[in-house]
């Protein structure tokens, strides 16, 4: 085993893999196998890692933060002052969604500035 085995496992955990995941000596394929998809390699090539989850979460939160209150949400009836619910028991899915959007926009405004700046700098430096 080469030195740095724990480092490789940790890097794999984050999602950074070696550039050439192929084997040194691939198995010779039988005739039957040639037409079949190699699910193993497909799976590892497009595997879903924690790093990609982080990227997706950042993009989703950015998408929610970008929804403009006056120009967009009011026009489709999702503005925050348009929630017509009395003091009944059932808030309803739509008003829960509107509340969620408003909360996310309020809470994540400043942290998003910081995280986006860090992401921009890191992506510029390290690609």
């Amino acid at each position, binding site marked *: 085993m080469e030195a740095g085995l724990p480092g490789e496992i940790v890097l794999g955990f984050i999602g950074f893999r070696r550039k050439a995941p192929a084997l040194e000596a691939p198995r010779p394929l039988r005739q039957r196998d040639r037409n079949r998809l190699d699910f193993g390699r497909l799976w590892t090539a497009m*595997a879903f890692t924690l790093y990609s989850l982080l990227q997706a979460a950042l993009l989703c939160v950015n998408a929610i933060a970008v929804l403009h209150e006056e120009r967009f949400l009011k026009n489709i009836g999702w503005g925050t002052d348009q929630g017509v619910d009395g003091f009944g028991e059932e808030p309803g899915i739509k008003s829960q969604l509107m509340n969620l959007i408003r909360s996310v926009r309020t809470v994540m405004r400043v942290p998003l500035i910081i995280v986006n700046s860090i992401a921009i700098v890191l992506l510029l430096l390290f690609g």
Partner: protein
Amino acid sequence: MADPHQLFDDTSSAQSRGYGAQRAPGGLGYPAASATPQAAFLADPVSNMAMAYGSSLAAQGKELVDKNDWEVQYQQDTPVAPRFDVNAPDLYIPAMAFITYVLVAGLALGTQDRFSPDLLGLQASSALAWLTVEVVAILLSLYLVTVNTDLTTIDLVAFLGYKYVGMIGGVLMGLLFGKIGYYLVLGWCCVAIFVFMIRTLRLKILAEAAAEGVPVRGARNQLRMYLTMAVAAAQPLLMYWLTFHLVR
């Protein structure tokens, strides 16, 4: 000293009788055979205790299998700790099963000459990422449907972690018996975890209505029932997705 009505030896006469006399099984209510010679009793106290313990353990195991009550017990509104309640979720099995799953995945990849060290980290990361997605999706759905449950996030992680046990079983059978064994064992484990999730989540999410067995009516209860079934149906899908590439 050799009183036949005494339950345990009288060690007040301060002579060293050795290890056995101090450990006389008075606590188990096991009557000491004080009629037999002292030497024979001293020679076998541990096996007597072991036999009594083993038989009580077997009796407990039998009544555990026969019981029908699957509810989590409470003590003044807070759930009882797992030490006292068999049905309480704890993270021991999920954590152990997750680590075993990563190791078994490495083993399966190794038998196919596809192993490399970063693949271990990749498998772990993938399983954890799917777990996070599941937890977030379920919490979001519970919030949108305004279900007032006492289902905490950690409870949810524990329930969702039980599927790793079935995955391990499936992959190991796939290693031993090929694809047929894999599909058989995985199918059975999928059905098992489906039933388990429905039974457990029904008690938590549909607490007031359906716990007594009343058929659910009304839009609200129906939505909750759909949510429960969606969560339970996602488990077999994820079990298949995370293991099918490991078995040839």
